[in-house]
């Protein structure tokens, strides 16, 4: 969290395009949030967040794009739906978090590189095999995340309980190819969108990638 030395100039800091994009992609009426804090109160991840959920909502309400997209919280949300379930204003808060994460991804933020690596590895596994190959995913993640030994201890119990499947269970028919095609089309569409939307957009200093 940065400590502002000067008062925040609300008029200058507000990014109306960002607000409109979040509202559009999430389908949520962000002005409905009255900052009661119910989302924060019920969120299992609040202790790990840099901005508690209600403050993330506040950042969006004020159109503070940079702060909203660079925060760690949006990467640590597990979509457990507690916030959405309990919001007194019927806001799908988890969906807003999702949309912010999409935007942060597109803009190149990754303050929680492990989470991003896990997601990427998971989807890469799906793209490759048509289904998630758990052991392969674990191995890939172990290498890419730089924490090769974290889950090494799980190997033995998995082996002894017959959970260590060393070959992927791929779909028997066209499924694998179809899934690969979905990913290929998605990458194409994403690239088109990236070109169309923000050719020169780069995130703020030190926000891109970054280690833990």
């Amino acid at each position, binding site marked *: 969290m940065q400590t502002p030395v000067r008062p925040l100039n609300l008029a200058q800091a507000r990014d109306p395009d960002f607000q409109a994009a979040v509202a559009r992609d999430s389908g949520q009426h962000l002005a409905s949030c009255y900052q009661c804090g119910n989302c924060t109160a019920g969120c299992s991840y609040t202790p790990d967040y840099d901005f508690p959920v209600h403050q993330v909502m506040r950042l969006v309400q004020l159109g503070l794009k940079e702060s909203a997209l660079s925060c760690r919280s949006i990467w640590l949300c597990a979509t457990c739906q507690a916030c959405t379930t309990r919001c007194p204003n019927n806001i799908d808060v988890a969906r807003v978090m999702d949309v912010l994460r999409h935007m942060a991804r597109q803009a190149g933020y990754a303050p929680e590189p492990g989470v991003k690596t896990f997601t990427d590895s*998971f989807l890469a596994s799906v793209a490759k095999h048509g289904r998630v190959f758990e052991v392969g995913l674990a191995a890939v993640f172990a290498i890419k995340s730089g924490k090769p030994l974290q889950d090494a201890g799980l190997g033995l119990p998995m082996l002894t309980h017959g959970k260590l499947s060393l070959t992927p269970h791929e779909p028997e028919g066209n499924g694998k190819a179809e899934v690969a095609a979905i990913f290929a089309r998605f990458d194409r569409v994403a690239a088109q969108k990236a070109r169309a939307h923000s050719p020169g957009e780069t995130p703020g200093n030190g926000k891109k990638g970054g280690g833990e």
Partner: protein
Amino acid sequence: MSAAPSNPLTLAYYPGCSQTGTAAEYDRSSRACCAALGVELVDVPDWTCCGSTPAHTVDHFLAGALAARNLLQAELAGHDRVTTPCPSCLAALRTASHHLAEAPAENGAPQDSGPNYRAEVERLLDRPAPLRATAVSVLQVLTEDVGVEAIASAVTRPLTGLRVAPYYGCIMNRPPGLMQFDDPENPTAMDRVLEACGATVVDYPFKTECCGAAFGMPRLDIMQRLSARLLDMAASCGVDAIVVACPLCQMNLDLRRGQVNAFSHSQGGTHHAMPVPYFTQLLGLALGLPESGLGLDKLVLPLGPALTAARAREDERIARTQAELAAKAARKNGTSANGNGSKENTPCA
């Protein structure tokens, strides 16, 4: 494609990726229970990954396409209802069918000036998205289609004396508008199934609290903290087992127990050894299905000691009751030997 099902309780079955690997026992026991209770499952032909949580954190249309492909496969095989044991798969499939239903197939204008969900999903799928098919959990099928009474009457080896904490996980019932099943704050479907199995179900306060989900790999510390909380609460409820309905919860609480216990130790907390069976495994036991078909051997923390302890407690209780009864034999004759519930009964075999 398959002809119209003769059994009214025939559903398409979507196992989900975990059920081919770390959660094979969930798949096996779900199939076994469904078969025993007259639910015919037909695998979604050539099913692929639903996208799960990672897909929707990247893009809603990608997630939609990955899920919709499976709904389409089921629909083409003549099924409008797909059942899956896994809540993550369930959420992915239901999210897709929900949004597809919101945006009708006619090439109408995008809603709320936002992108047209169906059109975007079809762009990625490169074929028409499914029209009707949606997903329900195996738990919902068992409680609503089969019914708890039918389950109770099919129980042959009640789990009398076994104290269990039903743990539903976060997304089996949430958000309520999407899941349309049970109570989002205090779900009871699994409670009722387990009670029908003869187990003693405690009022577990953390039924829907998050276990740390998929953070076991990227942020082990978070998963450890959250799962330890669940175990502490279950232990303070004095249960023999936490019963789950989600492969991710099961993995965090069972396979990763060593990691969670290590965290607990570092916090001065307790070591927990309670097993974490799937509700379908306990149901299978109560239905008298062979243990080999339920994958009990795949649980890292063995269920056996819990069953033995429960049985011993129950034996002792019965002996005590009988002694008391003998004393009052003149006035009263016999106890209600009802088959189910946490009442006096024969211990599970």
